[in-house]
């Protein structure tokens, strides 16, 4: 706050530190970069694109399509609920619909949409060429895409999970949910969350290591702060649901007893692990929105942000408290 507010514009520009390497890049360097990161022509090139703006946009478009699918499911649910004992959906179908809706909105829309904006905007806002690991970035996108397509393929094949997006054992255990539905949940959730973890790792590294010379942490746009907090939260939260899902998969397929009370297991273990992820998840979704507001208000009010330090501290505090409250 002090630095941006106390000096007039001209003075701030004059005192900005010099870039570390004043030598301008040569054309040879540019060709080298092109060979390494260019996507080449044709269909193969389309699939091998790694540029953060391309990947970010794909995240945004794909998760928007999933939003429409999840919304369509919700509309069918509302139709079913319009009158008591309506027969539009059978009880089994209704359970699949609301489970698919929840999983879609939480895992295939809300988080990937935020990540898409983060991946698109962050390098531009901090003045770097691309994300720290562009190929990993593309990998994360394809993991997300394949996971989402698999889930909807399962849905149309009649194998949609049906124990809610929270998927509590013992209902989701083998005894009360035989068949492959819950196996789809455990497999696909684990798979899709890998994509979130990959994006989080990249965003943290990019923000901490690749800022333009002179952009100290306390000069970062608030949007980038929000994304940094979101990425740190993902790093800590997502392993909870991944571990929980793997243990449930083992219960169902390898006769372990993590969640089976008659075998000494405990269904509460799932709730602890799941909500270790599920509660911060709400704020993981909120963070990019807070970042948007901070940027949009600043732009349209044509004033520097007021209370930068307080806002930053609030973002970080929200990220930490979200794990506990």
């Amino acid at each position: 706050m002090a630095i941006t507010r106390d000096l007039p514009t001209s003075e701030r520009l004059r005192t900005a530190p010099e870039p570390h390497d004043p030598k301008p890049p040569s054309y040879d360097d540019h060709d080298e970069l092109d060979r390494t990161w260019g996507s080449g022509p044709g269909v193969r090139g389309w699939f091998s694109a790694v540029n953060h703006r391309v990947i970010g946009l794909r995240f945004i478009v794909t998760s928007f399509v999933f939003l429409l699918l999840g919304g369509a499911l919700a509309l069918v649910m509302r139709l079913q609920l319009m009158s008591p004992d309506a027969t539009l959906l059978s009880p089994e179908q209704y359970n699949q619909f609301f489970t698919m809706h929840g999983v879609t909105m939480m895992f295939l829309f809300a988080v990937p949409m935020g990540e898409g904006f983060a991946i698109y905007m962050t390098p531009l806002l901090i003045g770097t060429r691309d994300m720290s690991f562009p190929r990993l970035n593309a990998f994360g996108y394809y993991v997300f895409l394949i996971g989402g397509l698999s889930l909807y393929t399962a849905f149309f094949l009649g194998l949609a999970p049906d124990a809610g997006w929270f998927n509590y054992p013992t209902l989701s255990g083998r005894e009360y949910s035989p068949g492959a539905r819950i196996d789809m949940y455990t497999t696909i959730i684990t798979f899709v969350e890998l994509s979130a973890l990959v994006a989080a790792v990249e965003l943290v590294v990019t923000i901490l290591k690749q800022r333009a010379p002179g952009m100290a942490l306390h000069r970062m746009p608030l949007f980038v702060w929000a994304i940094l907090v979101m990425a740190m939260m993902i790093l800590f939260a997502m392993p909870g649901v991944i571990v929980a899902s793997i243990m449930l998969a083992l219960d169902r397929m390898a006769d372990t007893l993590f969640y089976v009370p008659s075998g000494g297991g405990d269904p509460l273990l799932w709730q602890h692990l799941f909500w270790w992820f599920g509660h911060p998840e709400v704020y993981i979704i909120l963070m990019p929105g807070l970042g948007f507001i901070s940027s949009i208000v600043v732009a349209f009010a044509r004033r520097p942000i007021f209370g930068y330090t307080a806002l930053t501290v609030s973002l970080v505090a929200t990220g930490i408290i979200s794990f506990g409250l």
Partner: protein
Amino acid sequence: MTGWQSALDPAGVGGSAVAALWWAMLAMATLVLVAVLAALGWSLARHLRITAVADPIAFAARTDPAADQQATRWVGVAVIATTAILLVTFALSLGTSRAAARLAVDGAAEIEVTGVQWWWEVRYLDSLPARIVRTANELHLPAGRSIRLRLRSRDVIHSFWAPNLHGKMDLIPGHDNYLWIKAERPGTYRAQCAEFCGVQHTKMAMAVIVHAPEEYDAWLAAQREPVRSPADSVALAGLRTFEAQPCATCHSIRGTMAYGQAGPDLTHFARRRTIAAGERPNTPAELTAWLLNPQGIKPGNHMPKVPLAADELNALVAYLSGLR
């Protein structure tokens, strides 16, 4: 604000505490909304007063220490107010929990509620095993007495929620959860399973009947009695059918040869208000429809369709409808 399944129409100590918390939070949320809208309105009005600025960049970069200081003060006020609201809400929540916890008394009666897909087993516990009453899908409570509910599950996670009387509490397999409850206003209320528990979760309800204390004692004493053998021949044929057919494998009726434990106990069945866990009123016609095709009324439930001849069915309905 009224209703037999409404948290805003409290009929018990816990329910009153929850309703009071709800109203307090509504008041605070309204205040916050009004304050935010007032701040928004003030900002818009102020913006209109600032006439066209000749040089927006210079205007944005201008320094005005006095205005900054004032704004900082307002940020401080907002931070303190927000923190205060957080702490007050937290304290109120704690107070609500304490109001419910203060219901604990020594020597209180204990009632065990067990969640089963998709019905409720209720046992009125007693130090003498012979005096324990086992019934289903109805919870009877004495007004004005603290009762300890022992909440269990036989299969998946369920949740006991009678919003007029108390907040909800989960029934978790492998755990005994305890809920102190004190109803104050006699009447009939509705409890609903509040944790998704499978295909018929929607239709897992329970009537909660709050009696005046003496009335409750009389009810419980009547429930302890085994059923008498029916006098008329049709009902007696119904009893024979019940014992000979698969019915007795899952259901028990105290005073007969039916000892099944998997399904609801049917002793004094005719005194219950509903069948199929609150799904249909307990009338001979509805009972006939249920026995003819349980899967048509609650698809996926664990009661199979038992093939019965017409006279067997009529006798069975006559017998069950006479189990007072």
